[in-house]
């Protein structure tokens, strides 16, 4: 699969029909997930209706982490095997990952308002999510600052790998840190005890997020490939060669 993806022409061909498929899937899953989440699942006994934010919030959290893992993997593949597509994928994945992380942060703090009475709590998960968000930003900013395509790809990949080493350490250190000073009087996140009736909508939404990511990724990759072809052509014309 990967190997057949490796060549752009094939990729363009495959993605051309993969994309609408995922798009359809995303629409369906979102429809189901949202309706389940809004109408066919109970309000939380202590968090009330606001618990429904969870269906937006949690999948965003999960997938933003998964996306960084993918970004790091793609970067590794690109550095080792020089698959341009891996680089294209990494480049396209970053903004989506940042968006998911941002969504998690925003919905989280929206959620925090009713449940904790504050917009933000320095809780381990929140903090490491924030760091993840920053890591995405750094990667994007670096690539934006390097106008030499080739360098941007390879230096970006190196940074992505460094981040992959760093994030687990951050996660651990932050967990350790939060146990060090237990956040003051707040309702802890209901992580452990999710009522089964919340599972269905949660996982449907998770699926929807995944499909949405796939669509956005493929679209981003295709756009990037077109852009590269265009610039190459433009350069040739400009140089009159």
């Amino acid at each position, binding site marked *: 699969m990967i190997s057949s993806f490796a060549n752009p022409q094939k990729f363009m061909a495959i993605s051309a029909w993969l994309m609408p498929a995922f798009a359809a899937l995303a629409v369906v899953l979102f429809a189901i997930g949202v309706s389940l989440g809004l109408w066919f699942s109970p309000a939380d006994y202590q968090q009330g209706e606001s618990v429904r934010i969870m269906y937006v919030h949690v999948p965003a959290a999960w997938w933003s982490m998964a996306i960084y893992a993918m970004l790091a993997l793609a970067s590794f593949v690109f550095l080792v095997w020089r698959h341009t597509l891996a680089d294209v994928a990494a480049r396209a994945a970053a903004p989506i990952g940042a968006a998911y992380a941002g969504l998690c942060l925003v919905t989280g703090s929206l959620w925090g308002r009713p449940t904790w009475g504050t917009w933000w709590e320095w809780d381990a998960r929140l903090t490491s999510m924030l760091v993840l968000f920053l890591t995405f930003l750094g990667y994007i900013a670096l690539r934006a600052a390097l*106008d*030499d395509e080739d360098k941007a790809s390879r230096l970006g990949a190196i940074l992505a790998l460094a981040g992959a080493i760093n994030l687990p350490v951050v996660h651990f250190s932050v967990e350790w840190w939060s146990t060090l000073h237990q956040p003051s009087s707040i309702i802890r996140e209901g992580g452990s005890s999710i009522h089964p009736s919340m599972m269905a909508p949660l996982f449907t939404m998770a699926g929807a997020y995944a499909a949405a990511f796939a669509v956005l990724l493929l679209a981003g990759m295709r756009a990037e490939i077109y852009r590269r072809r265009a610039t190459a052509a433009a350069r040739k014309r*400009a*140089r*009159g060669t």
Partner: protein
Amino acid sequence: MGLNLGVDKEAEHFAPVRLSVEAVTLERGGHVLFERLSFSAAGGDFVELRGPNGAGKTSLLRAIAGFLKLTTGAITFEGVEDAQLALHLLGHRDGLKAALNVEAHARYWASLLGEGADAGAALDRVGLARIADLPARILSQGQSRRLALTRLVTAPRPVWLLDEPAAGLDTQGKDLLDALIAEHRARGGLVIAGLHERLTEEATMTVTL
């Protein structure tokens, strides 16, 4: 290099200008570069500064441009009110911003130093039109030098102070430089250049440091 491009069209004659360097002594870091140097030149002249490395050519040019204080002596311009608005200084460094492209530089100088030939025509003149959208970062040595030369073309100023203008230029580039100098003198412009090699254009005066 066709000389029928952009520039000449508005090549009206400069008001007569005259530079006099009187008994100038220049010290740098407590060490005397040259003493009681005197010469004077007028529009149309081409003064070449010669001397070994470290003789003080760059220093003298920067002094004439008003960047270096004289130890003793005086440098005066006649025919221009503010000297720094009447001169071009082409130094060892080209003054390029790696991140900005060729055209951006030409346009920037045109508005900063005085509107003359428009940027496009100027780039055409120095032979960079084809790569107008390349960032300066990736320009070759000679391309950068040519870009610096566009300053002379875009902003018409009577006095040119050129510090080893030919450095890094290929033969065609050197021809361009000669042509520019010739035109400038024809317009009543004054050229003072620190040089190590010879240009085809004959100097009217040689100052040796």
